[in-house]
């Protein structure tokens, strides 16, 4: 468990680094660190998700010159709700609906993130929000397919 937590933390840091260097500039509307947090919220326990959400929020806020603690508040909150939704769907649903349940949680996370950020910035651009949603949704499931291997990051919450 401890080893897995360290692995996940390193993964999150790498994803955050990817967000900062942005190899494709602003043409790819994806926040990789948020995808990583979603992955953790869908696979790990609540306390770990909350901790990672807070650390990630703090890192994001410290890199933005505008200051404030927008992400420190947002990310742990969204991660906790996603964790709760996951528990609800996975405990009550059937295994056949696993993908559907994950899709609902990811959709919730992304939609809430878009709304929150649009409110913080005070400006909404529909095309950008649409691109962000589609690209993040696709990238999340691609990332999950790469990471969710037995003995690597695969969690016991599904079994």
């Amino acid at each position, binding site marked *: 468990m401890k080893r897995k937590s360290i692995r996940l933390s390193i993964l999150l840091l790498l994803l955050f680094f990817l*967000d900062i260097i942005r190899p494709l500039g*602003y043409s790819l509307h994806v*926040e990789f660190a948020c995808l990583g947090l979603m992955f953790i919220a869908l696979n790990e326990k609540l306390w770990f998700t909350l901790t990672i959400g807070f650390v990630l929020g703090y890192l994001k806020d410290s890199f*933005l*010159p*505008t200051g404030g603690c927008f992400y420190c508040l947002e990310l742990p909150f969204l991660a906790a709700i996603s964790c709760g939704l996951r528990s609800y769907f996975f405990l009550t649903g059937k295994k056949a609906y696993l993908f559907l349940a994950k899709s609902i949680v990811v959709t919730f996370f992304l939609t809430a993130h878009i709304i929150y950020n649009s409110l913080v910035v005070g*400006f909404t651009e529909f095309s950008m929000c649409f691109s962000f949603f589609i*690209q993040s949704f*696709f990238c999340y499931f691609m990332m999950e397919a790469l990471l969710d291997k037995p003995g690597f990051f695969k969690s016991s919450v599904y079994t």
Partner: protein
Amino acid sequence: MYPLYRIKSKHIIVTALVGGIFLFSFRGPLEAVIVMFSRQLTVSPQAVLSQIYKLQEENLSLKLQISQYTQLEEDNKRLQEALGFENDKKIELIGSEIIAFSPSDWRRQVMLNAGSTKGVSEGAFVVDQKGNLVGKIMEVKKNLSVLLLVSDPDFNLPVIVGAKGVGMLKGDFSGAKILYIDSEDEIASGDIILASLPGYGTTLKIGSVKKIQKNNNDLFWEVDASLFMKTVYFKRIFIVK
């Protein structure tokens, strides 16, 4: 095997529609990947690169000076005396590289590896290799500074549109909008958007008018602008001292 004639046309239409929307959303990243790979093919040794950067800096400085002198010729005699005092200044540029982007997708801010030790000041304009305005410096530290790109929603700048129009440019993530252009001003799609470079008596290109519209009761035009700068294409940029 599933026979082809069993596939209903509505399934094909839905699949094509979903695929179309999906690919449309990814056209930006695909373009960026192609540009990145084409850059890798033309990679040069570090010494040659630094020489190229130096020449680019010199070339751009000269280009801006030419633009400055051309504008001077066009000015009438009444303004020559007033401008003469300021236009003696030579445009000095500080070459800089992007070291980090803001981690949020709702901000268009980048960090540069030039700070107060190199003479960067807050509010300084930043241009790309072609002399187009990229943004302005919003925060300066000892060895780094934060650049607010033109496409950031917090970016505001008075601009000149076409021959007569004057308005306020505001970033909108992908491009920019121009606010408060009087509905009596004559502007057209494709008009160049310029910003005045304070203290030098010259202007910098920002972009061009993409779309213009106005409702019957509006006092101002609603103008959408497309920017000349492309964030994915530049790595080295120049700060106007």
